[in-house]
């Protein structure tokens, strides 16, 4: 009987995984379309229809998949799959509204940070194996970027976890469900509040880097490297990288939402059951949209691309200092109170 139950549980999880992966991809592509449309309107042009990313995807899927002659073909073809799978996996660890993550209990935010590097590593591997000088330069830049933004990203996570562990010593503080249930803003005093704002700024600065968006799109830099890492990719492989980008955007933004804005509105409206579920999911999507607008769309239309040394400098010095300052303020806040 227990084996049957656990088998049923596993089946349920697999079903959930398929649904979440599908929804993640579809929502990711739609959000990409919305991002492009809004950016276009901010740049005083009409812009593509919102379903354009879908059209791009389907078009690329029917196109020929070309592997360059001097590329290592199995790595070249494997890299996009690895990137897509790892970014979809993160979706299973993310809580939506007050629905616990699908794989809650099997991993925590530290695992997510590792998983987040995987798509980037996939791109680096693909870039190096494609045998083009542009892709090589792009891959080198991507590695430098990864090394640059990890420190501020980890600072944010550690600061939040540490604060939680001070308040709730018995909880698994790095679990996303716990982080989701206890927003940082309610736990800190005025000093810590400023610290939390600084941490949010740090995460907001890391997001465009993680997603390779202007001003931190040096690895793909269109006008310099003609697409950089992706220069040799075409057809199915390029479509998969396109999906990766869409899913990664959702993942990074959801992470920000989970860490800083995990609030729901269903209890305010005194709803329950299915209705509360729907309202919370919709509210979550609205939050994701707002955060995406600030962290991705707005930044990318408002600034120029930075050079790779400037990117490294920006992450290592100013952004890290802001992050560490946030950490220190939160520590001070806890110890003074």
């Amino acid at each position, binding site marked *: 009987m227990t084996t049957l139950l656990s088998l049923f549980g596993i089946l349920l999880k697999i079903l959930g995984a398929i649904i979440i992966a599908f929804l993640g991809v579809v929502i990711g592509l739609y959000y990409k379309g919305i991002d492009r449309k809004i950016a276009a309107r*901010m*740049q*005083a*042009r009409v812009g593509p229809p919102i379903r354009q990313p879908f059209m791009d995807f389907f078009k690329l899927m029917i196109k020929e998949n070309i592997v360059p002659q001097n590329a290592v073909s199995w790595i070249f073809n494997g890299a996009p799959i690895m990137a897509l799978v790892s970014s979809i996996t993160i979706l299973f660890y993310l809580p939506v509204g007050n629905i616990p993550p699908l794989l809650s209990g099997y991993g925590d935010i530290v695992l997510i940070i590792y998983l987040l590097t995987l798509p980037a590593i996939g791109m680096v591997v693909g870039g190096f194996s494609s045998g083009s*000088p*542009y892709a*090589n*330069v792009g891959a080198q830049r991507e590695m430098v970027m990864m090394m640059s933004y990890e420190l501020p990203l980890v600072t944010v996570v550690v600061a939040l976890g540490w604060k939680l562990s001070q308040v709730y010593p018995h909880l698994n503080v790095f679990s996303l469900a716990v982080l989701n249930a206890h927003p940082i803003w309610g736990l800190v005093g005025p000093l810590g509040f400023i610290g939390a704002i600084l941490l949010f700024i740090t995460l907001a600065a890391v997001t465009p880097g993680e997603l390779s968006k*202007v*001003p931190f*799109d*040096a690895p793909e*830099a*269109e*006008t*310099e*490297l*003609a697409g950089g890492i992706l220069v040799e990719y075409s057809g199915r492989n390029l479509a998969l990288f396109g999906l990766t980008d869409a899913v990664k955007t959702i993942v990074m933004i959801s992470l920000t939402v989970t860490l800083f804005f995990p609030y729901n509105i269903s209890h305010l409206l005194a709803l329950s059951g299915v209705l509360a579920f729907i309202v919370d999911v919709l509210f979550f999507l609205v939050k994701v949209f707002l955060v995406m607008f600030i962290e991705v769309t707005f930044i990318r*239309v*408002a*600034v*120029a*691309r*930075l*050079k*790779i*040394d*400037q990117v490294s400098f920006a992450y290592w010095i100013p952004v890290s200092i802001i992050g560490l300052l946030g950490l220190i303020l939160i520590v001070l806040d806890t110890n003074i109170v």
Partner: protein
Amino acid sequence: MNKKTYSIPIGPVHPSLEEPMTFNFEIYGERIEKVNLAPGDNHRGIEFMGRQRNPIQIIYLAERICGICSASHPFAFCQAVENAAGIEVPERGQYIRVIIAELERIHSHILWAGIAGHELGFDSVLYISWRAREEVLDLLEYLTGNRINYGIFMIGGVRRDISEEQIPRIRKTLEYYKDIYGKLEDIFLKDPTIALRTKNVGVLTKEEALNLCAVGPTTRASGIKKDVRQDQPYSAYADLDVKAITPDVLTGEVNGDVYDRIIVRLLEVVQSIQIIEQCLENIPSGDIIAEKKLVKLLNQLKKAKGEGIGRHEAPRGEVFHYVKLAEAEVPEVWKARAPTYNNLMPWAPMLLGEQIADIPIVIASIDPCIACMDRVTILNKANGQKEVLTKKDLHDLSVQKTRRIAP
């Protein structure tokens, strides 16, 4: 330490280049160690074609050397022919020429501003400045009938007059650019990311600019006060007070970097507006062309003998045309020199030691016009013999290709 460099080709086709041109870079890490320029991908033999045509036909050929300088080349060419044949342009014609040339400068500089934004990864600037450029293109269409390739220049004057009713429309456009100039200045001179990407990048020192004979905004940004409109005022510029603009006008110092080139170009937009306003105030009445009947003009040119040069300060620098007439239907010599031709050599000192990321903006910073610089010879590579194809060969080849595409 043994430096291991690798090579990156930029061009002939590359997103950062608007026109075909090849650069071969030797890169160490991200730093440029060696540059090798290989132009010629856009050479159309226009000078050769021109030597088979009569001067009036050449005006239209010169106009099509480049789409952006389509007032500059005919301007310089007409001056060269007028100097060679001793034709005097009526004053009103001179003023109209200057108005068109300055409108072209506004349109070219704003176009460049957009491209520079795009090269920096700042696409919003591209869209916004190109939108602003539409206004002057509309005005040019209103005045000449065409957005580009205006077809208004003629030996001895211009082909179309600017009437009294058209002047308010010109003033409206000038007001528009005065309004928008503040925004452009905000975007380019006050944006921190643009400053980060352009300051101390692609530096050309004054000595290098002198030695390598740079022209236009490139040389002025390095602190050399060289502007044909100021040094050797031709046409209506002789009446107007034009001063060469160097970046120290605004910042008090000259660095010769990309940022300084931006300053020079932005200030020149303002200068152009002022020049057009002065022209509109002082424009005299009278004829616009020395000889209205083209047949008569052609006969006059057929009998003319002599040589002349025409110089015009195009948006990118000095355009130079040399014409020699020898009592024949076609000129004996026609030599066209576009500004990019002289700005080719300064690329090397600008690019050396910079990063890969700087390549697009440094290349764009001289506002290259490859079409202008390269002015067809087709090779037969079958049987290892490289020969010049004849007209018949070309015709046969194109017939074959047509059959292949549409059997």
